[in-house]
């Protein structure tokens, strides 16, 4: 009887003949949340349902011996009553591996090779994060410190920019009114410095609009500000420079929070993004605390003052705390907000629990359910309630 080959990969379990033709197959669940569990089972040498199906089929087709690539697969085969033969360089299997991406399309798991790779990329990231999570020590606290550092930076940037505006206004007072954006203001001072150095072309090169570039360069020519030495300008530029450094640090920390949150709290992050997620952790104090809070408390996290006032005075309790930053809440009409906030808080409570207790990724599902509920709210309460 001809040899038959058994192999498992990200697409599922397969039985192949000597030509590499598929004799039997059982596909893996090709969705991020489920496939991670599947791949972890494979890595741990567990007998997956897929392997079982395919090997039972082999038996029913009358095969007693299967060729496998690894001792691990061999064990699985023998646990199901087959005789394995291990051949690490089995060319049938390596040729099969070469066609993985085509097969994914052929089997209808993806619509194109590119989609397969995009999915595989996502899977490899999430799988690595899941494993890293076990190594993580207090990483929720790190995300909390990072988001608080961002808040500190925001506070001080304002202070520094006010100082910079006052200082540079000795030289070019008209700029203060013309450039309201703090970051842009600091960039102009840092990059161009002396008012005489400001020109339409240079402003355009810094990415400003034609209109603004014209206005600023004209104003610089007619400025009533004092002429300053290069020496003096240099120090004003130093302050502008550190402001730009702070903006850069802020961006760096946002990237960091993103990386940490995806690892430490992937489901909360999937729902509200890494920054709002980190704020929730910060308000709760830790992921463990957040996981233990009821949805009703999560809903008003960050609105403690308003809540206590309501309790004291018997007034209306707040409908939402920091989750107000979630676009579907603050962009919705007033009368829908409470309902959306409740739905969001409920999902967040579930997400935090999963993040803390299991670490499985079910973000796709949670997001989908939340979207459905929000659409439902928008449909059911499209009109403002009648005044009582």
């Amino acid at each position: 009887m001809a040899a038959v080959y058994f192999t498992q990969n990200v697409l599922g379990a397969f039985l192949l003949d000597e030509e590499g033709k598929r004799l039997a197959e059982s596909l893996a669940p090709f969705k991020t949340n489920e496939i991670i569990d599947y791949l972890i089972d494979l890595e741990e040498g567990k007998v997956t349902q897929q392997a079982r199906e395919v090997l039972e089929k082999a038996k029913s087709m009358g095969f007693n011996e299967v060729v496998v690539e690894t001792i691990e697969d061999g064990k699985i085969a023998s646990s199901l009553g087959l005789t394995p033969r291990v051949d690490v360089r089995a060319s049938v299997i390596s040729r099969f591996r070469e066609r993985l991406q085509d097969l994914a399309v052929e089997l209808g798991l993806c619509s194109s090779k590119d989609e397969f790779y995009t999915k595989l990329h996502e899977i490899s990231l999430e799988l690595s994060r899941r494993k890293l999570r076990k190594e993580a020590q207090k990483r929720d606290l790190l995300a909390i410190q990072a988001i608080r550092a961002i808040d500190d930076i925001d506070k001080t940037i304002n202070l520094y920019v006010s100082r910079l505006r006052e200082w540079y206004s000795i030289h070019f007072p008209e700029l203060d009114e013309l450039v309201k954006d703090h970051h842009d203001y600091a960039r102009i001072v840092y990059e161009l410095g002396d008012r005489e150095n400001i020109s339409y072309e240079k402003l355009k090169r810094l990415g400003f609009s034609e209109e603004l570039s014209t206005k600023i360069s004209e104003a610089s020519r007619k400025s009533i500000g004092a002429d300053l030495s290069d020496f003096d300008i240099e120090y004003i530029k130093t302050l502008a420079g550190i402001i730009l450094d702070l903006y850069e640090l802020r961006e760096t920390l946002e990237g960091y929070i993103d990386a940490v949150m995806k690892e430490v709290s992937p489901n909360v992050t999937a729902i509200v993004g890494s920054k709002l997620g980190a704020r929730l952790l910060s308000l709760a104090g830790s992921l463990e605390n957040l996981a233990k809070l009821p949805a009703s408390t999560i809903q008003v996290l960050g609105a403690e003052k308003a809540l206590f006032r309501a309790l004291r005075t018997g007034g209306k309790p707040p409908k939402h705390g920091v989750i107000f930053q979630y676009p579907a809440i603050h962009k919705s009409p007033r009368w829908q907000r409470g309902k959306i906030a409740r739905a969001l808080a409920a999902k967040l409570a579930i997400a935090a629990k999963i993040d803390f207790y299991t670490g499985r990724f079910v973000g796709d599902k949670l997001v989908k359910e939340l979207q459905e509920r929000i659409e439902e709210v928008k449909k059911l309460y499209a009109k403002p309630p009648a005044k009582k």
Partner: protein
Amino acid sequence: MSEVVAIKPHEKYYGVYVVELEDGSMRLATKNLVPGHRVYGERLFRYENVEYREWNMYRSKLAGALANGLSEQPIRESDSILYLGVATGTTASHISDIIGLKGRIYGVEFAPRVMREFVALADVRKNLYPILADARKPQLYRHVVELVDGVYADIAQPEQASVVADNADYFLKHNGYLLLAIKARSIDVTKEPSEVYRREIETLKNRGFEIVDVVHLEPYDKDHAMVYARFKR
């Protein structure tokens, strides 16, 4: 900092660029796949509206090997590569620049402390596929790695040639290339580097590799040599 005078494709090496600076010095560079982003503090250069990243010979052994005249740079656009010991991704990021978005690097690294950084990099560079695993046990990640065009290995372990060959058996195409950084002294401190190279190279030959070139990495790295080989299944 000196300004850029010109940036040209390297006359000998595919995907590599030569940056000429105002002070007369030359630097290696690759086109930045993700403009504006640095990976390990390297300098960014803009020239004729393209952004390049300096490829530091002291930080990346592959750059060191090229600077020392390796006979060829075998990595091509769209290649898929298995990278054993990818660490934080310094060298991998330049290979990522060369293979572009149609290529893939499966980056295997065992140390979580280091892997974390590579995961963050892979989140931005879509052609990096992180694999938190032990390179000595390829069977544990065989489910997620395809058959690749090349293997790059920089693993400071005894018997690195065997580890690489085990991986090649699973994942490397016929005629696929191998770039192996041998950290000679970490294998056997009692023997002269040259002997260690010989023994490791012997192992590679026995396991199906044809050696194309070997260059020492001094002065960029005192303990390593780079082996360039082809795999015959």
